[in-house]
């Protein structure tokens, strides 16, 4: 267990030391949101209507793009091989990496999201539900995405493969996440959507690490 904690501590320390990297997903998140009012139209009514879906799609894209280097560095410098051959199971390594990656990239995003929501004049009562839905949804995105990353880590050329593998599995999370915020923006209770999201969350974080560990073993054996 403490090797799990040391790993997480080490990852956070590394992220702290190279701070720039963690901000990239934040900047990307802001940029994507900036595009919509410019691209579509800045009329308040329309923006308020698309705001829930838009914030969720921006968070989904930011999380997916930041996934790419989740295992790549460990694969190339041999750390992955070491952990694959350690007497600890690879699942605890996968868990630690996914958790620290979520803390580094998704947590700051959730903290910033309300500010962007206001800029899209999302009704303020929906902000609370937005944060809860992101708190439940983004770990799910990271864990499911982790499976795709583990499968493609061994590839020489970094291709567009990851989004292709992972986006179909993001769809249920997007459906319930976006509609939770959308429904609460109209003043209805979003409990139903959040419960389902919580259900998916539990299913995701329990099953995904097994798939990630198995996929890492396959990538390491290349």
């Amino acid at each position: 267990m403490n090797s799990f904690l040391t790993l997480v501590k080490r990852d956070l320390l590394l992220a702290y030391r190279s701070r720039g990297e963690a901000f990239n997903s934040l900047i990307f998140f802001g940029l994507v949101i900036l595009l919509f009012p410019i691209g579509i139209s800045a009329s308040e009514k329309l923006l308020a209507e698309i705001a829930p879906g838009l914030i969720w799609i921006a968070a989904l894209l930011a999380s997916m793009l930041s996934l790419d280097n989740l295992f790549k560095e460990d694969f190339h410098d041999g750390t992955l091989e070491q952990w694959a051959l350690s007497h600890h199971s690879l699942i605890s390594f996968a868990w630690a990496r996914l958790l620290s990656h979520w803390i580094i990239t998704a947590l700051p995003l959730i903290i910033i999201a309300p500010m962007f929501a206001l800029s899209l004049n999302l009704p303020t009562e929906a902000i609370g539900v937005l944060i809860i839905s992101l708190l439940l949804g983004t770990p799910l995105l990271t864990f499911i995405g982790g499976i795709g990353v583990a499968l493609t880590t061994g590839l020489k050329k970094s291709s567009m493969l990851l989004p292709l593998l992972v986006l179909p599995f993001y769809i249920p999370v997007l459906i319930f996440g976006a509609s939770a915020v959308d429904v609460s923006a109209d003043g209805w209770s979003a409990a139903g959507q959040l419960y389902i999201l919580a259900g998916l969350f539990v299913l995701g974080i329990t099953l995904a690490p097994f798939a990630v560990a198995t996929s890492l073993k396959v990538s390491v054996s290349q």
Partner: protein
Amino acid sequence: MLFSAHQLSCIRSHKTLFENVSFQISAGQLLLVEGKNGAGKTSLLKLLTGLRRPDSGEVHWNNLNILNSESDFRSHLAWLGHQNPLKEEQTALENLILLGHIRPRNTNSMISALKTVHLGHVKHKFIKTFSAGMKRRLCLASLLIADTPLWILDEPQAALDKAGIALFEDLAEQHLKNGGMIIMTSHHSVNIAPEYIQTLKLGQESQ
């Protein structure tokens, strides 16, 4: 303690790298794997560590296949590949602590391990300031703090200067004396007492 391989073969993208490779080593012995580049030395080591399944044949640790979990092979193994599993943004000590978590620890302290590989004076420096030789020596230090009888090393002497190679040879000899086992690949000879050494040739002759 017995580590043995039986009729191993490995096929990489349609090419048979090697076939029916068999050997056996026990406590206090070193197996030197020699062969030209591309003869499949690293692939053989991947089979021996269990990172990759052999296309045919089996690897046994105390007569149990290393791939099934009863053999608990991994808690007796220390592996060092071509690359140095170190993070540039960390200090030598931090890296060693991390590497210490991967394998069962023995009683040697980290500081003494760093001193034996002459890195005691730079333990709080970031790795990115280290030379390739220093990084390799840090990896050797990680072997010293592990309580694993079997070392499988892929060109451990790479990037080491003459003093580094001499240091490695002392550590290896020490490990063999304490009843350890080493399997390693190398381009040049290892001048340890010959009675410890067994060599395995890989490449065309063994076909």
